[in-house]
Every structure is written in structure tokens, then in C-alpha cells.
């Protein structure tokens, strides 16, 4: 049995009178691709934001490799080995592709401000080392030839890949992808599917993703959880989810209504 990498225990998030997520519990094991689906406004991104530390859950706990990370600052959680991408791609548009990736190394920076100001040997050593590692990472996702392009100059599909590469630079064990295929055409979606599979094997990752595109989720994920109105209504293998009456009801409405 592989180890549990992420465990959410009865997570609840209330915004004033609105309960966005209620008693959300999941367990994700290592090397899995876990999908979270649900209609618009079901609370998927809210669940993500709680896990990554952007939101502090009203109730419930989150465990990462058994360690309680509830309420930790996002940058602390990143250094533990969890990285994320955003629904609407959020690259640093005025930085080059390589610089975007280099920001992912920042949390394990090995020189300090004094080294940078005095340009000590340590500064040059680690700055060069980071650039080499960054190029190697871009090489492995086949973006090396775009290293010096400004992020805003790339086409949409490649921007998504850069965003994923940037998240990989933080050295994650768990990668959270918030609607990676949003806004992509079928060909780009297919490419992305292979890409995710590829980086998962290459970087020995566990992947947790939110997605709208059913085909994408059904083909990629081993386990799927379904969220509706903030409540988890089903969890299981893709074929179980496909035939689950509650899920069909949530997506298509009640036949008897």
C-alpha cells in the first residue's frame, strides 16, 4: 500500500451565512491522479484554496504526509512540497519563461541579501546553479527554446505548460491543478493530458486536479470525487462516477423534477 499524501478531514468553509464547502473529507494516496469535479459554484476552488493555505478553513483539519498543515501560510506549505496552478493562468507576464521558473526556486534560496549586494562567490555559484536547474527543467518539459521569451508572448497552451513547469520548480510531491484544460481546444487538451501523465512519471508526482472537461477527467484520473453545493456526493473510479445517479442528477437535474 502506498502512503497517504493528503488527507482532508471534514473541511468546512463558511463565508458569512454562505457555506461554500461542508464536511469535505478525502484521502489521496501517493502517485495517484485524483480528480475533483462538480458543477459551477460547487466549491471546488474553495476546497483547493483551503488545502494550499490561501483560505483558512472554518472547521476541519488538513494533513500532508500526516503533518497537520491547517492554517499554515501558503509559502510554508509550498516548501513542504505542495504546488498549485491557477484556473486563469497567472504567469509573471513581464518576466521571461526562465525567470518565471526561477521564482519557483526562491523558497530554497541558498544565498542571502548580503551575498547579492556584495556579489560574493556564493551568489554566483548558486545563481548559476539555479539557472542550470531551471534550464534543465524547461528542457524536460520541452520549453527550453522558449526560455528567453516573455511569458506574455507565448500562446495559451504553452503558457499553461510554463505555469505547470513553474510549479514543478518548487519541487512538489503533490501538484494541484485548478482546471488545467480550461479554455483549450480539443487538440491542446489532448496534448495536456499526455503532458500531465508524462510529468507525473518523470517527477514522481501525485496529482490532484479540478476539471470541467469530463472526457479529460475520465481518461486521466484514477479516482474522482464529486462536489455539489459544497458537499461531496460521490467518490470512486471513473466508471462508477459515470453511472452514479446522484452525480447525473447534480449535473443534469432530477428527472422527476
Amino acid at each position, binding site marked *: 500500500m502506498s502512503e497517504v499524501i493528503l488527507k482532508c478531514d471534514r473541511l468546512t468553509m463558511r463565508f458569512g451565512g454562505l457555506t461554500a464547502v461542508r464536511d469535505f473529507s478525502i484521502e489521496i494516496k501517493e502517485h495517484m491522479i485524483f480528480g475533483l469535479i462538480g458543477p459551477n459554484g460547487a466549491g471546488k476552488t474553495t476546497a483547493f484554496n483551503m488545502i*494550499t493555505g*490561501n483560505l483558512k478553513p472554518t472547521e476541519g483539519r488538513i494533513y500532508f504526509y500526516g503533518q497537520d498543515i491547517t492554517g499554515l*501560510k*501558503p*509559502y510554508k506549505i*509550498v*516548501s513542504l512540497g505542495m*504546488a*498549485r496552478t*491557477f484556473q486563469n493562468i*497567472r*504567469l*509573471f*507576464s*513581464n*518576466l521571461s519563461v526562465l*525567470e518565471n521558473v*526561477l*521564482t*519557483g*526556486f*526562491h*523558497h530554497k*534560496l541558498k*544565498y542571502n*541579501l548580503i551575498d*547579492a*549586494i556584495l*556579489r560574493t562567490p556564493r*551568489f554566483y555559484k548558486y*545563481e548559476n546553479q*539555479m539557472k542550470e536547474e531551471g534550464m534543465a527543467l524547461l528542457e524536460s518539459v520541452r520549453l527550453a527554446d522558449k526560455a528567453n521569451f516573455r511569458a506574455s508572448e507565448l500562446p495559451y497552451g504553452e503558457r499553461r505548460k510554463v505555469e505547470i513547469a*513553474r*510549479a514543478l*520548480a*518548487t519541487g512538489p510531491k503533490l501538484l494541484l491543478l485548478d482546471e488545467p484544460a480550461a479554455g483549450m481546444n480539443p487538440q491542446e487538451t489532448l496534448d495536456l493530458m499526455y503532458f500531465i501523465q508524462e510529468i507525473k512519471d518523470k517527477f514522481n508526482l501525485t496529482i490532484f486536479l479540478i476539471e470541467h472537461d469530463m472526457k479529460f477527467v475520465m481518461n486521466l484520473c484514477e479516482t474522482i470525487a464529486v462536489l455539489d453545493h459544497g458537499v461531496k456526493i460521490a467518490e470512486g473510479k471513473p466508471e462508477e462516477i459515470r453511472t452514479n445517479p446522484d452525480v447525473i442528477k447534480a449535473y443534469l437535474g432530477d428527472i422527476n423534477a
Partner: protein
Amino acid sequence: MKIDRNNILTALSILVFFLFVWWGNHHLTAYAVRVWEDTLIFLMLAAGYNLINGVTGQFSLEPNGFVAIGAYVTAILILTPAQKESMFIIEPMVPWLAHLHMSFLPALIIGGIVTAIVGFLLGFPVFRVRGDYLAIVTLGFGLTIRVVSNNTITITNGSLGLKGLPTYTNIWWCAVWAVVAMIVIMRIVDSAFGRAMKAIRDDEDAAIAMGINTLWIKQIAFVTAAFFEGVGGGLLASLITIISPTMFTFFLTFELLIIIVVGGLGSMTGTAIATLLVVWGSELLRVVEQPMNIFGLQIPGIPGMRMVIFSILLIVIMIFAREGIMGQREFSWDWLFNKIKGKRA
């Protein structure tokens, strides 16, 4: 090899700059030297301001407060105990400050450090907000410093201000500090810390998601800016020899804001060019504040007319060159050599 070449060229150009300073000190008129001193101090102030406003993208309006703190601290430290005793006529100065006296360099550095500490403490509350709100709270800080300096009579002599400061500031002090400030700031920008600052400017939430401690990075930019603005304040104090609470108003911040916007937010090269343009431009524009006779039409001298012209200039830049002279680009030797090679090819 390439890095060596660039370093040598940089060292050479700094040498040329100091040769120019040496030459200027002997051959330029006292007026021109004075304007150069202003230019160099403003370059230091603007470079610091651009680090927080342009590079890190935190639109803030506090430099006049920082300059005032640096000016007061330095002034209090370089005045002799006898001068202080004769000056504080409303209420005597607090004893431990009244007897404190030191030479210019430590006074400047302490002025910078005190300002940096104030900046550090100020950073915690103000960086809880972003965008326009940050501008408003930091604007409030500048006003607060003015009120405080007006009312802490036993430290600042209140509205009477401090007079007869020793005139240590000369073009050498200004030149060396400006060069130090530019080198330190450009090196910070060209490092992982600078990348993190730019990341925060482009998308703060994504920067957080990349594991960047954004508060800390903003603090680095803010404290560095505060240090150099404090030192700049000290240089200004000893240059003008009089300081009072009404001297460091929002107009100082506004002038620096014009410089960094005209030069390009985030570009230190742009800041240098724009400082030259704005400081020398405002000297040349003194003409418009004098009484004029245009085709028989008598116009009395209008003080503040230069600011009107600068405001118009700012609007024009906003319309035609939204990114300023340099945008976010920087001058680099590589760029220059590529240009030369490109032209030959």
C-alpha cells in the same frame, strides 16, 4: 570572460563619472555644482523609491516622510551641543540628544538606519493592504511625520526647525552615495530577490503560490528604499543647512513620482535619465516663474508654475508613452555590444 568584460566596463564608467565630478568641482560654476548635487541626491531618492514602487509594484507615497526622518536624525547628530542649546528656545532639548555630536559619515549612516527601522516597523501594518489603499496609508505616514516633527519640541525644536547646520555636503558626498545606492539597488534587482519583487508586481497571489514570502520581499524593498531616502535626507539637510517640519511636504514625493514615472517604473536606467531631465529641467524652467513680458502682456511671477508644467508633462507621458522613457528595460553592456554588432552586420 563576458562577465569580466562587463565588470571592467562598469568600473571604468564609474571612474569616468568620478573624473567628471572632480573636473566639475573645479571648473563648473557654484550654481552648476549645486544643481549637480541636487541631481545626485534626487537620483538616490528616486532609485530607492523606484525599487518599492516600480520594481515591487507597491504604489506608495511615503518618501517625504523618510527623507524628513533622515534629515532630522542627521541634523541633530551633526549640530554641536552649543548650537543646540542656543537654538532650543521654547523648550530645552532632551539631555541625551543635546550632548550627542558626531561627524558627518556616522551621522548619515545612523540617519539611514533609523529611517530603515521606521520603514521596517511601518511595513508591517501598511503591507496588510494593497493597491490604492497602500497609497493612502503611506500618504498618511508622510503627513504624520510632519505633525510629529511639529510637536516633539524637545527633539525637533518644533515649528522653529533646526538652523545653521554645518555644510558638509559637497558634490563628492552626493556622488559617492548616489553610486553606492545605484550599485546596491541594481544588484538587488538583478538577483533572486529582484525576481521575487518583480513576481509580486506581476501577480502577488501567484508569487505567494510559488512559495515566496511576499511580506518579507516587500520589506526588503521598503527598508532598502527607506535607508537610502534617509541618507538622502541627511545630505539634503546639510546642503540646505535649515530644516523645518514644512520642508518635506508631499511635493517632494510628487517630484520623485514624476521622475520614476517619466523614467519608467522598474527601470533604474530610466530613473537616472529622468532625474537629469527633471532636476535640470526644473532649473531651466525657473524662467516661467519670473515676471514676463510677452508681446506687451505683463505676467507677474507665479510661484509653482513649474509644477503646473511638470503635471502637464506627466499627463503627456501618460498619453503617449505609458511605460515612460525606458519602460522596464535596463541599459546593459551586452545590449550595447549587440547594438554595435547589429549595426555592423
